[in-house]
């Protein structure tokens, strides 16, 4: 049942909408490097609701046509360097959002409804940049109550990293409940895990409640330390030296190419 990383990312076709998650949820970095190696193109990346190195790498490597995000940030350093460079060059379609709007858009997809309403946001310039968002007068109000409607986002694929899966294809995600929404909202989910355990997680009433069932899972690959160089829950911390090196190199297009060749395309990329 478990796939190789290459077979896993082969299920992410060029041009598809790919949904990912922030560092705290578990980022499938090893799979992201495999995706760059396979030369993915024209992806639309949706971050629930933000991203860091993963989005920046995919942008720098030219895999993305568009991104919908509430932030692409690397640590305290501010915006991801390739994200900022692409924004300035106008070479990437950026759909700026706000965190709860992306949660709402994926929950709308999870519930099979065309949109979810969201309070706040009225008067933000975000609305001017989002022709797909709609402000209506609250139909259940008594008039003069502007309300934002956020359309559903249905990603083709969700990609994330989790602590473990079982032989039946169920995936335990612990407190990272946003991954349930991500998996439900997406047509299929591809998951890398630290380990694959024997048996069936649903037979354990302590583990079952935090388990995304195989109904939503399209493929699983084992990837020990698969979130490196990012942190993974309480299991491992981020590799601060490596991220500092990334920030140093990715400040320029040439430096980013150097990083890519050494840490993604070269043998070290398979780490």
């Amino acid at each position, binding site marked *: 049942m478990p796939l190789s990383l290459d077979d896993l990312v082969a299920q992410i076709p060029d041009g598809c909408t790919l949904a990912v998650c922030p560092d705290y949820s578990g980022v499938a970095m090893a799979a992201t490097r495999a995706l760059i190696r396979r030369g993915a193109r024209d992806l639309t990346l949706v971050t629930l609701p933000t991203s860091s190195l993963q989005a920046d790498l995919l942008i720098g490597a030219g895999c993305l046509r568009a991104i919908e995000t509430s932030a692409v940030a690397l640590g305290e350093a501010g915006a991801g360097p390739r994200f900022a460079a692409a924004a300035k060059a106008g070479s990437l379609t950026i759909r700026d959002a706000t965190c709860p709007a992306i949660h709402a858009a994926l929950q709308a997809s999870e519930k099979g409804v065309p949109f979810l309403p969201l309070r706040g946001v009225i008067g933000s*310039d975000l609305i001017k940049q989002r022709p797909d968002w709609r402000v209506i007068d609250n139909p259940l109000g008594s008039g003069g109550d502007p309300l934002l409607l956020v359309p559903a986002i249905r990603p083709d694929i969700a990609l994330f990293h989790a602590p473990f899966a079982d032989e039946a294809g169920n995936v335990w995600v612990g407190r990272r409940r946003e991954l349930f929404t991500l998996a439900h909202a997406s047509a299929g989910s591809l998951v890398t895990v630290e380990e694959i355990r024997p048996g069936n997680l649903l037979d354990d009433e302590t583990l079952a409640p935090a388990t995304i069932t195989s109904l939503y899972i399209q493929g699983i690959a084992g990837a020990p330390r698969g979130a490196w160089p990012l942190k993974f829950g309480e299991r491992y911390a981020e590799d601060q030296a490596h991220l500092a090196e990334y920030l140093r190199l990715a400040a320029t297009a040439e430096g980013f190419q150097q990083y890519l060749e050494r840490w993604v395309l070269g043998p070290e990329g398979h780490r």
Partner: protein
Amino acid sequence: MSTLAPEIYLIETVRRLLDGTHHVAIGANSPMPAAAALLARRLGTGAARVSMQQFPQFSSFTDGGRELFDLAGQGRLDAFFLSGAQIDGRGNINLVAVGDYAAPKARFPGSWGSAYLYFAVPRVILFRSEHSRRSLVERVDFISAPGSSPPGVWRRGGPVALVTPLCAFAFRDGGFHLASIHPGHTLEEVLDQTAFDFARPEKVPFTAAPDDTTLRLLRDAVAPELAALYPHFHAKLFGC
């Protein structure tokens, strides 16, 4: 009093702004707000519950990344902290870009949850670690979240104050009012470094220092908690 580190004034200022709050949430990389909230909690003046998602011992969220936004929508969050690459005199914040949005001169990470939390949380405290004409501008280039809203627009709260290394502003009637200047700084400095207009009393007071009890609590009870969360900040403030 001259022996107090400048950060102590910031902590005390924010601690007072949290008076009477119950649940306070604090984002990543926010040592000063964390210190202020933990101090308020110890003193019993506010912030009985402090949520900091990135620290397991302060993370009481079990419904995923949306829980913070959902509970704010439920009215279960009393205070939050926001900042902005640019903040203007109407309390608008910009976390997106400087210059033209389509071809910006500088691009920042993005609006995060600001466009929602600025409306949903009754008391939002703005904190900006750089007090300059570049950061405190007349008009932001992009409104990530507006400082106030026309009548009728659903809004439970908004900015109550802006705290910088130089001073503290209160926010009311859609604009900033200089509330106090931190010891060691002057009104001239504030006027010189602030690009937006603000109101001020005839005589601007200095920011109050914490009283002895508060100071003792900060050093004896809060400092050890802080050491576990923000070792660098703790070391800078209290020595190793």
